[in-house]
Every structure is written in C-alpha cells, then in structure tokens.
C-alpha cells in the first residue's frame, strides 16, 4: 500500500489536518502516519513536508533517528523483545528461539503474510517482570515459551484487524 493512491491520500490528509501546521507537530504527525500505515513512505514524506514546511531531508533525518519510525513497511503486529540486561539474564535467548521458530522468521524480518515483524528493543522498563516484550501498543512481561505461544495465538488477524486503525489487508 503506497500513500499515493487516492483513498490512502485522503487518509493521509486526514491525519495531517488533525495537527497544526507547525514544526513542533512534526513528530506527532510522523508517529500517527507510522501507526496508521505501518511505515512512512516517500510520498507521505513529501506531503508532510508540504504541510509543515519542513524540508524533506530534515524529515528523513527525524524518521531515521527514532527506532519506532521507519520507511520500510513493518508487519501489522510489531513484536519488540527487550534485550537489555535484566531481561537478558532472565532468559531472553530462550524467548528469541521460540519467537523465531513459531513465526518462521529471524529478528529484523517480517512474515510473508505481513502480519508479524520481529525486532529487538532496548530497556522497556519491565525489568521487575522479565523477560518482556511489546506488541504494538501492549506490553507483556514474565514471558515463558508457553506464554509466548499463547500470546501469538491470541493475535488472530480477523479479531484484531480493526483494533489498531490499520487500513485493511493487502
């Protein structure tokens, strides 16, 4: 899905119009676009530049600065496993193996059906209940292999497709 098609362009405009035409709104705009479309493509960058007046190159600089923003399309559900020390010594490696085996992809990859992406993240402040991960806007602590499998099963696409305001299946 590129933001160049008409329906999508309307949705993009709607996101922009929710924000003031001001540079301080740049990050909130980018966060919203990234959330809605799963990434920020070059067409969206041009539109954001037109709207805010911030040069394209600087927008690119801002996007690449933040680990949650990306120009490459991620899966509908982005799994971010914490790899910092408290989670690491609490058995993170075992969770890595379970996630990779169950989804059939490695960290840094997205499943072929575009549903799940696997990423590492730095400390997410769940050190009292490790190992922990984020899936989109939700946090999961105290992970065990069994629990990870249950969590993945609960993310059946049909049930969740509207939850994150994500525009339909490709």
């Amino acid at each position, binding site marked *: 899905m590129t933001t160049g098609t008409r329906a999508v362009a309307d949705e993009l405009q709607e996101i922009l119009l929710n924000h003031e035409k001001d540079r301080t709104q740049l990050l909130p705009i980018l966060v919203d676009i990234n959330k809605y479309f799963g990434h920020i493509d070059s067409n969206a960058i041009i539109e954001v530049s037109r709207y805010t007046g911030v040069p394209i190159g600087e927008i690119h*600089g801002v996007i690449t600065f933040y680990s949650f923003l990306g120009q490459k399309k991620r899966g509908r559900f982005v799994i971010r496993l914490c*790899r910092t020390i408290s989670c690491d010594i609490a058995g993170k490696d075992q969770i890595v193996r379970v996630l990779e085996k169950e989804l059939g992809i490695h960290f840094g990859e997205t499943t072929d059906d575009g549903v799940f992406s696997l990423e590492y993240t730095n400390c997410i402040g769940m050190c*009292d209940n*490790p190992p922990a991960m984020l899936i989109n806007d939700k946090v999961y602590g105290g992970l065990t292999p069994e629990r990870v499998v249950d969590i993945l099963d609960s993310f059946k696409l049909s049930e969740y497709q509207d939850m994150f305001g994500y525009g339909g299946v490709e």
Partner: protein
Amino acid sequence: MKNEKKKILFGEFVTGAGLARALEMGAGKVVDEVKASKLRGRGGAGFPTGLKWELTAKQESDEKFVICNADEGEPGTFKDRLLLMEQPEKILEGMAIAGFAIGAARGFVYLRGEYIYLRKILEDAIVSMTERNFLGKNIQDSDFSFDVEIFLGAGAYVCGEEFALISSMNGYRGEPRNKPPYPSEVGFRDKPTVVNNVETLCYVPYIVTKGSEWFKEHGTQASTGTKLFSVSGDVKHPGVYELELGITVNQLLTEVSGEGAKSVQVGGASGLNVAEKDFDKPICFEGLPPGGSIIVFNHKRDMLHVLKNFMEFFVEESCGQCTPCREGNYRLLEGVKMLEKGECSVRYLKELEALCDVMKDSAKCGLGQTSPNAFLSIVENFKTEILYR
C-alpha cells in the same frame, strides 16, 4: 511498591491540597520553599529543582512551559512507569505547581513511545483533574490557568536528556546541543522551559504542604528526601522501593532480599558497577549515583557478558553527533569482543581506559560522558575474571 514503611510518595495524598496551598503562598514563596527543601532532580543528573524554577521564573517572556520528562529509558529503571500508572494525578499536580511557580500556562508530559499503553491513564487523569478544576482555566477560582498535553516519543534513549527532549519536541532530531543557553532561557518553541523528571514533580505537592524542613528530615544533608529505587536482576523481590537517600548498598540489598550478590549495577548502564568490597558505600549525590536503577548480579553471572550488553546499548543509543561518543562506544564494544576471545592485551586495555577518560571529558552530553562508567568499573572490579579467559 514493595516496602511497608510508607515514607513520602506512597504515604497519604489528597489531590489538590498542594496546589491550593501553593496558590495561597504565591509563586515566589513556592520557589523559595522548593529551593529550601534542597530537592534535586530525580532523573539522575541531580540539578537543584528550586534553582531551575527560579532561573525560569526570572525570565521575561510571553510564554513559558513546563515539561514532565517521562522518557524513562535508563536500563533497569521503571519507577516512573509505576508513578504514571498509579499516581498520575500527583504528577499533574506537581506540574501545575511548577507552572504556577514559573508563570507557565501550558505543560507537556513527554511520554516515551515504549510507554504508549500508559497514555490512556494519563489522559483520563487530565480530564478528571480538569473537571475538578485542578487543571484548566482559573484553577480553584484563581487567576492561574494551566493545561497539560501528552507528547509521545518514538524510541530514543537520548531523548531523556533535556536538551535532546526539547529538540525532539521542536521537530528536530532528538540530539543534545551545547549549553548555555539552558532550557530556562531557550527551551520548547525557544521559550523559557522547565524540564522535570516524573518523580521530582511528585515530591513537590508534599514539599508545598508539609514544608521544606519536614522534607529535609529524610535523606542526607546534600541529598535530601527519599528516592524510588527500581530493583531488578538476581533478587527475590524485584520492584520499586522508596528508600532514604544515603542508604548503603548493603542496607538496600537486605531490604530487597538480594543477599549474596556478586556485584550491583548502581544507577543503570550509565552508573557504576559496585563489587562486594564497596557495598558499605552510600547511594546519594555525594556517593554512588542515585539514578535509582539497581541491577543485582549473583555469582553465576559473567561480568564480561554484562558489560557487552551495556556497550551494545550505548553503541545503539548514541545519537552519533559527537565523535567521542559515536566512535568511543564503538571502540569500547570492540574491546569487549576482543576480551571475549582472549585477544585483548593488558596494554590495549590500558589504552581503552584512557579512551574512557577522553570520552568523559569531551563528549557533548551525559550519554557519552557516563557511558564509560560501566566499562571502567567492571574492568576494575573483575580484571582477573575478564582479562584471563
């Protein structure tokens, strides 16, 4: 909140009492009281809060801002998560009092993207407090109006640094900059801005109602008050503990059932690794770094593995703007990998230690100035273990 002895933050609290008292006292007296309490920033850097407010209050400007720094990213820290989840009204009240003290009408909570699930709790608290007129127009029939909005981050540790946070809000890369000018002069939208940590703001309503003398009964002379400690790693009862500043590592370990530790990482990845021989040292601004992150390691833990984890963290989170931090952390990680393979000579290790000193002296912000701490302290404490593998 784990310990039973409720000290300050988890004691009794009535929303609005601090704010009402502040409105009675007047802005000048509020600043004086916070100054007198010697409250220092709880994010880790420890700048005196009252002084920060005074400097911002003095500025002549049509607009000023209060920012609550909820970009809690230091490895091993999660006390702000608990406050945001359980005590959002206390945070917002602290912000309103800060706004009243410095003459600001708008505040922002800079919430790290990783904590997006706490957004709803904060939003609800803002609505509820506005309905009860603790926020909004003419608060409690005074001339003071104050609104709070949430600003969401997008995954960048360095944005916890106040200059980086402001750059991020201003629509730029979240990179620190040289100082001065300080945010008290040039901050959000280039206007005078106060940036306070979540926990710092939570002490404010208490200081205003109970007074600075009461607050100073806690802690040490240079580090007044209590502190929330986020305890994780090899302990029986991980969690958030409110303890007096000045507590020794030993006392803390007893409190959290972490006896028999090999070493304790005090203050997070950017803090210090403390070995058993130093467990009698106090945690406070004049002692071991009081950022509040406590990660306990038992005797089975490989300290080189721990160090590698920290250095990978810094290599990834360095913003890359200044050379000492960008290249320095990379070289330190490379050194750790050499140590892993048993390929690092004592001579080269000394060079790396000298590099650490250069980074401390010349990096632009706190990230690069403190990232060598883990390297230096772990190498010093466990030289035999890591050098001869």
